[in-house]
C-alpha cells in the first residue's frame, strides 16, 4: 500500500514539475538527493566523485522527466544513478589500464599492514568497480545497504529469484577479489 501511495504522489509531483512549478522541482530534488548520493556511494563511487555523479544523475533525470510515466520515482532514479556509476567505473578501468602499463596499482596484494580504515574502503570500491554491473548492484544493495531481496528486485527490475542467484555469484566474486588483495577469508 505504501509503495502505491508513494508512486501516486511521485506521479503527481513529477506532473507539477512538468507543468513548470519551480517549487516542485526543488521538492523532487530534496526528496531524492540523499538516496542518489547513498546509492552512488554504495555502488563503489569514490568520495571525490560523488558530487559529480549526483549532479550528472539529476541532470539526466530532469532532462528526461517526460519519460517517467508511472511507478516510483526512486526506482526510476536508481536506474539512472546505477548507469552513471557503471559508466564511470568503465571509464576508470580503461584509464587505469592505460596508466597501469607504466605504474603499479595503488593497492598491492599481500600488504595487510597497509589495509587500514581508509584503504579498506578504497579496496571495496576497487573490487566493486571491477564486478559485473548486475552483480555489483545486488551485492551493494544487499550486503552494504542491507535492503531485502524484494526491494532490490523492484529497484533493479527483476525477480527475487534472480536477485538471489546474482547475489550468490556476486559474493563469490567479491571474496575471490578480496583474497587476491591480501584479505583473509
Amino acid at each position: 500500500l505504501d509503495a502505491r501511495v508513494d508512486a501516486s504522489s511521485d506521479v503527481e509531483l513529477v506532473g507539477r514539475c512538468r507543468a513548470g512549478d519551480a517549487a516542485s522541482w526543488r521538492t523532487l530534488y530534496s526528496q531524492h538527493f540523499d538516496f542518489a548520493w547513498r546509492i552512488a556511494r554504495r555502488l563503489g563511487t569514490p568520495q571525490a566523485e560523488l558530487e559529480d555523479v549526483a549532479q550528472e544523475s539529476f541532470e539526466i533525470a530532469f532532462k528526461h522527466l517526460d519519460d517517467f510515466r508511472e511507478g516510483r520515482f526512486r526506482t526510476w532514479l536508481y536506474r539512472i544513478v546505477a548507469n552513471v556509476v557503471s559508466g564511470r567505473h568503465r571509464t576508470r578501468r580503461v584509464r587505469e589500464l592505460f596508466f597501469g602499463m607504466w605504474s603499479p596499482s595503488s593497492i598491492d596484494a599481500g600488504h595487510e599492514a597497509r589495509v587500514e580504515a581508509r584503504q579498506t574502503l578504497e579496496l571495496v570500491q576497487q573490487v566493486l568497480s571491477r564486478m559485473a554491473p548486475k552483480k555489483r548492484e545486488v551485492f551493494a544493495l544487499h550486503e552494504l545497504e542491507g535492503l531485502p531481496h524484494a526491494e532490490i528486485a523492484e529497484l533493479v527490475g527483476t525477480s527475487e529469484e534472480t536477485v538471489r542467484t546474482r547475489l550468490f555469484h556476486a559474493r563469490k566474486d567479491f571474496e575471490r577479489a578480496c583474497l587476491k588483495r591480501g584479505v583473509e577469508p
Partner: protein
Amino acid sequence: MKLESVLEEARSDAAVVAPGAARERVWQNLQRPRRARPTLLYFVASATLGALLCLGIVRLVQPAPQLQLAKVELGQATLLTLRAPARVELGTRRIDLQEGTATLKVAADGSGTLEVQTGACFLTDSDGSRRPVSTGTTRLGPLLSEEVALYERGWAQLSKNPQAALAVFDDQLRRFPKGALVQEARLSRLEALVALGRHAEAVVEARSFLQDFPQSERAAEVKKVLEEK
C-alpha cells in the same frame, strides 16, 4: 584483515551520508545553464577543423610557386611549354595558366595553337574578353588581321575626320607596339597631326620617326615634311 571486517567497515562508511553543503552545491549547479556535452558530431567537427587548419598551415609554410612570365614577340615562330602559374603576353592577347600544364605554338602572325594538358587556363582576347580554355587544343587566329583592320579603319577616316583617325592610330600603336604596320601607323598619325594643324606635335613625331626608323623607305617623305616646315 578478515573478509567480514572489510564488509563491516564498508557498511559503516560515513560517506554514504550526503553533506548539506554538497546538496546545495549540486542544486546550484543544476540551475546553471549546462554546457553542451561533447558528442560524436562535436568530435567529427573538431577533427575536420583541425585537419583544415593543418592543411592551411602546410600551404602557408610551403613557398608559393613563382609566376612564369613570358612576352612573345610577333614576327617569329615560338614554342613555349608552360607550367602553372604562368602568364604569356602574345600581342594583345594574354594567356593565364592558373593550374596544370600547357603548350603554346605561335606562328609569326600570332596565330597558333594552345594545348592545355591539365588544369585551368584563361584566354584574354584582343577585345578584352576573358574566357576559360578547356583541356585540349584551341586554335588562335592571326593577330596581324586585327592590326590591318585597325590601320584600314584609321586610313579610311584620315581624309574625312583626322581627329578620329588619330585616335584609331594611337589605339593601334598602343595595342601593337611592335606590329607589322607600325611604320605605316606612325606616318599616318603624322599626316593626321598635319591635317589637324598640330604642326609642333607633327615635327616631334617626324623627328621621332626618323630616329626610330632611319633606314625606312619612307624616311625621305618624312624629311620632306620637315623641310617644308
